[in-house]
């Protein structure tokens, strides 16, 4: 029973900290202490966290090599934006619709492609991302190449913050359950997982669907904060950006994804004045970090303050990332 109580106590403490962070930022925004540039980047961080954590479920925990995440984000963004533009439904419903639509796409993409392995799966997911974008470009009803503009800016700091928290909680809870273990076992050794009674197809599709759902949610938030969405925003380079966050943070580490999303968003914003040099620096940073921490910033561990205590076991942390290749 004490384990249960300790759990509840810990969760309560986390919740309290979150409420405090939220209130503090909200207060600073209200009173103009935090100017809109910082607010915008906080929101971008939130959206990137959702994207990275959801892709981490697919790539890091399930070990499926997906590089089409931006496609699902696009589905969510367009789905949610269309609801807002064409109907009078409130934001939560629009977001839900976008996310569900992305989830449905996740199932549709997942079932046929997840029998592919490694790089073949990667190219198929990349292909799906590009197909989705190619279709959007060609549908004038949803703005074609122009994209959709005039989407009301109704996704506020509060929405983004709490939906980010919700995403992280749901995915963390999923990962730390028997379903999460089933998901992880597929990454570790698919043959053994099947021999242990785990329906690998089901769990692959499930990870893919949940991942897509949250990518769609991030897309919806994006659309309702940045006024405009364009198909080009969701091209394969965007998928790469998300992938970089996941790997940089550590595949299989949710806190790692969060840290990487924050880090990369800040880096990107602070290099804006450098033009081409900006990407050269970004590129060098990527290479250097990967060379010095091949397992990502966090490996598969989760960040905790206990980490710093001497007692923590120094496990050899050789990471096991996505099963790339045959």
């Amino acid at each position, binding site marked *: 029973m004490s384990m249960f109580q300790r759990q509840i106590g810990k969760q309560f403490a986390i919740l309290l900290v979150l409420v405090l962070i939220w209130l503090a930022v909200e207060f600073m925004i209200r009173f103009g202490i935090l100017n809109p540039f910082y607010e915008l980047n906080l929101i971008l961080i939130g959206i990137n966290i959702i994207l990275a954590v959801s892709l981490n479920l697919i*790539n890091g925990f399930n070990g499926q*090599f997906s590089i089409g995440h931006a496609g699902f984000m696009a589905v969510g963004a367009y789905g949610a934006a269309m609801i807002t533009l064409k109907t009078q439904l409130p934001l939560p419903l629009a977001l839900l619709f976008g996310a569900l639509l992305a989830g449905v796409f996740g199932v549709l993409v997942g079932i*046929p*492609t997840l*029998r*592919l*392995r490694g*790089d*073949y799966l*990667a*190219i*198929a997911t*990349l*292909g*799906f991302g*590009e*197909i989705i974008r*190619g*279709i959007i*470009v*060609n549908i004038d009803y949803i703005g074609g190449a122009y994209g959709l503009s005039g989407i009301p800016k109704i996704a506020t700091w509060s929405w983004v913050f709490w939906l980010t928290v919700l995403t992280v909680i749901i995915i963390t809870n999923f990962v730390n359950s028997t379903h999460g273990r089933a998901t992880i076992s597929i990454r570790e050794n698919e*043959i053994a997982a099947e021999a242990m009674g785990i329906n690998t197809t089901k769990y692959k599709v499930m990870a893919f669907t949940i991942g897509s759902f949250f990518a769609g949610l991030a897309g919806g938030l994006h659309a309702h904060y940045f006024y405009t969405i364009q198909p080009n925003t969701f091209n*394969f380079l965007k998928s*790469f950006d998300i*992938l*970089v966050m996941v*790997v*940089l943070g550590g*595949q299989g580490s949710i806190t790692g994804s969060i840290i990487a999303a924050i880090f990369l968003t800040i880096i990107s914003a602070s290099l804006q004045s450098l033009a*081409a*040099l*900006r*990407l*050269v620096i*970004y*590129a*060098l*940073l*990527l*290479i250097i970090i*990967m*060379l010095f921490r*091949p*397992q*990502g910033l966090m490996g598969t561990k989760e960040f905790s303050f206990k980490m710093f205590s001497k007692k923590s076991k120094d496990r050899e942390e050789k*990471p*096991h*990332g*996505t099963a*790339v*290749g*045959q």
Partner: protein
Amino acid sequence: MEVFLQQLINGISLGSIYALIALGYTMVYGIVQLINFAHGDVYMVGAYLGFFATAILGWSFLPALVMAMIVCAILGVVIEKLAYKPLRNAPRITALITAIGVSLFLEYGTMLLVTPQVRTFPQVLPEVQWKLLGNLTVSNRQVIILVITIVLMVLLQYIVHKTKIGKAMRAVSYDKQAAQLMGINVNQTISATFAIGSALAAAAGVLVGIYYNAINPLMGIMPGLKAFVAAVLGGIGIIPGAMTGGFLLGIVEAMVSGYGKSLYRDPVAFVILIIILIVKPAGLFGKNVREKV
């Protein structure tokens, strides 16, 4: 019929370029199991070297081509030593991320050096148009690229499967430690792989630069991606597969543009790719060997 044949020519000519880039891609992949996303950018660097040699130094075609191949071979080896070699024992996706880093570095490093503007090649390879069967047009450059692609494919296939260095490459690709126990120099073998792959990319860059007559620092992104698709389509790591995949992709794109809607060319090409992969999960030439349990 005539239009169909012309479209077939168009497709093969486009496909031979994809194939040419895909060869290097697939070769590097076959040996080190790394999706070298920077391959498309080495191709771009090759094009710029060719441009530099012909437009600035006034060299003729062949020396320019050779110089670009040599310099890119060295570039490939250096990239491998600095960015990939330290990660040989890391998860493969880590090297993939550094490959993305190298790719961005080459793109924007080049942009810093030469500005983003388009450059055009001087006329180093005079162009001749041939008319076949009445109205079909083929240019000497198309034929040159096609022939070079096929020759290089055969050559590569020969190197990898028939020569000693090729055998070493395959051994290294499977188990580096065991390869060392055979007396194989793993570092040299991998360097050779990157050198050959990058030289091929450079050749493609120069040829394509001359063929289309316009190069820019981001020119490697799309062909790189398409070549990767072509390599996967054929079964990544398999040399004839890369070539077939390249041709197939080129022909599909030409036919969709010619007979369907050009607007849907890329989505349709990807749909076909995915269908092929669902039917043949290891690509056209790949054997879907299940791991022996």
